[in-house]
């Protein structure tokens, strides 16, 4: 004991130089010495608590159990654990405790070196990095997105096939990855394949692999994405673009959990969870016989629909701040936020490209902005005009032609981004009638509709 006390005194200088709390315990887990950081955390002076069991001084979660500090003495191997310590100022501080054996002259360890690392800052940073709902990069506070995010742990808890639908740019890829990360397969690969990016012959090889000599140029075996995702998740994005002949093979692979690589007679078995995503209406493709109904049912065991940004109340502001902070930091700029006018413009815009488009708009603004606040002049012109760079796809229920919509688009700038199609249509009719001084025939022509169509729509909106 006395020898260790002298060792403790000598080692105190070294312990005090460490950036974390550190202590030296004897073979019975009694404190020999602790550094000044640990003294500050526990509120006890090292000399006052010499000889006291470590768990009574470092008041951690396992203080009331068999002390894990002694584990290195029993096993000779270091141990590390997440815990918390009630500090001198009565805070519960999250810590990582590592206990390492110190060898003496004999065969077994004679003392324990203990490190107590305050991880509260790391935990706070992690929480900030992961956003409000703790899902990677999925920033959302709107009620509709909250419903989606609450569903993620449920679908992550099963291996059933998941179909994610939603307009382009709504975050289908991110959601698929979030489901994978939250699942038991998180430590295995997450493989993404774009079914619309490759021609049929290449796509089959990409998905299922091929054997050497299967076709001209196949000089070696290729495992394919299904095999690369073994144990993990494969995300088939743009599944609506999957060629019909491959749909049959995919269905078989899903049913049998096995398939034949191109040019091979040997069946390959895989354990892969399949998530599919599309911006297309698969039901409509089924009706048009461009997508197999049995595959649609097989994929749609679980379904999540991601709402478009214009229907996500409050998320434009949240996402704008999120992207602006990220781009400003990346560009090394001192942009702190948006002026009220710029924010009003962004909140009015309809975002046909959804979150992806908003991210691009904010990147443009962060690049162009020369002040601390983004002003309307820093936004792309098409946003200022309130028009989208590409045609807005009207909902399927709207029986209007694209030409009619385009013709009226210039007048839609004043509508809030969350306006329903019905409100947009009503506003279009009103503006056309005002412009044509109430002449219905002219207004119908201007809108690209027949007179009877205009009359029917006016009645529906209570305007006639």
């Amino acid at each position: 004991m006395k020898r260790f006390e002298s060792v403790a005194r000598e080692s105190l200088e070294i312990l005090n130089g460490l950036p974390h709390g550190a202590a030296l315990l004897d073979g019975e887990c009694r404190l020999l010495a602790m550094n000044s950081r640990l003294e500050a955390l526990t509120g006890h002076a090292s000399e006052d608590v010499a000889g006291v069991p470590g768990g009574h001084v470092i008041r951690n979660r396992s203080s009331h159990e068999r002390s894990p500090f002694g584990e290195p003495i029993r096993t000779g191997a270091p141990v590390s654990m997440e815990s918390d310590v009630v500090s001198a100022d009565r805070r519960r501080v999250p810590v990582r405790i590592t206990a390492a054996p110190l060898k003496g002259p004999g065969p077994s360890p004679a003392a324990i070196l203990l490190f107590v690392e305050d991880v509260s800052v790391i935990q706070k940073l992690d929480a900030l990095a992961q956003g409000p709902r703790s899902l990677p990069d999925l920033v959302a506070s709107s009620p509709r997105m909250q419903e989606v995010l609450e569903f993620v742990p449920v679908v992550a808890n099963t291996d059933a096939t998941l179909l994610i639908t939603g307009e382009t740019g709504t975050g289908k890829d991110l959601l698929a990855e979030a489901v994978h990360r939250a699942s038991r397969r998180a430590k295995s690969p997450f493989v993404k394949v774009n079914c619309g990016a490759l021609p049929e012959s290449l796509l089959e090889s990409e998905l299922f692999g091929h054997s050497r000599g299967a076709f001209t140029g196949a000089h070696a075996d290729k495992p394919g994405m299904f095999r690369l995702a073994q144990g993990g998740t494969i995300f088939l994005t743009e599944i609506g673009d999957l060629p019909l002949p491959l749909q049959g093979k995919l269905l078989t692979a899903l049913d049998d959990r096995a398939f034949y690589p191109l040019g091979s007679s040997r069946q390959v078995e895989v354990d892969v969870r399949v998530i599919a995503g599309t911006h297309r209406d698969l039901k409509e493709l089924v009706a048009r016989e461009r997508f197999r109904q049995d595959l649609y049912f097989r994929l749609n065991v679980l379904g999540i629909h991601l709402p478009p940004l214009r229907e996500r109340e409050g998320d434009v502001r949240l996402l704008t701040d999120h992207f602006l902070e990220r781009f400003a930091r990346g560009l090394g700029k001192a942009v702190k936020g948006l002026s009220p006018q710029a924010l009003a413009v962004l909140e009015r815009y309809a975002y046909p490209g959804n979150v992806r488009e908003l991210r691009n708009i904010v990147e443009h603004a962060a690049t162009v902005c020369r002040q601390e606040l983004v002003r309307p002049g820093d936004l792309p012109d098409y946003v200022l005009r309130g028009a989208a760079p590409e045609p807005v796809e009207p909902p399927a229920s709207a029986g209007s032609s694209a030409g009619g919509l385009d013709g009226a688009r210039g007048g839609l700038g004043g509508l809030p981004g969350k306006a329903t199609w019905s409100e947009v249509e009503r506003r279009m009719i009103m503006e056309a009638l005002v412009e044509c001084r109430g002449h219905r025939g002219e207004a119908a022509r201007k809108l690209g509709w027949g007179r009877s169509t205009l009359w029917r729509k006016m009645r529906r909106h209570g305007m006639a």
Partner: protein
Amino acid sequence: MAKDETARDGLSGSRSLNLLVPLLGETVAPRFDLAREVLIARARKGRLTAEPRVVLLPGPSAEEICRLVLSERITHVVCGGIEDVHYQYLTWKKVQVVDRVIGNWEGALRLLLSSELRAGEVVPGPWSVAGRTP
């Protein structure tokens, strides 16, 4: 290390005292929120008036101990580490709390009744090579 708080309030006077100590075996529990049993004692004129009793809790719970403190009309709590929320609650309820105490409960109570127990006290015990003699 400064011992910043004292429990001096005339404990040796004629006022009746109700004392509670969260326990881990024979010692003051290192943590208030993890204790599975508490010792309750009554004292008058600086002496215990009866044999202290030990109450087993259904599980470790700071809230349960706080509830017990109120129902038993406890005037003084001697404990190890306690979170501020519970400390503030108890002091708001006019309970005197002496925390960060290390050592066996008997020695801690003896120091308390002689108005010598301070927050952060290391009560001399079988393991201790430091601390004051009561």
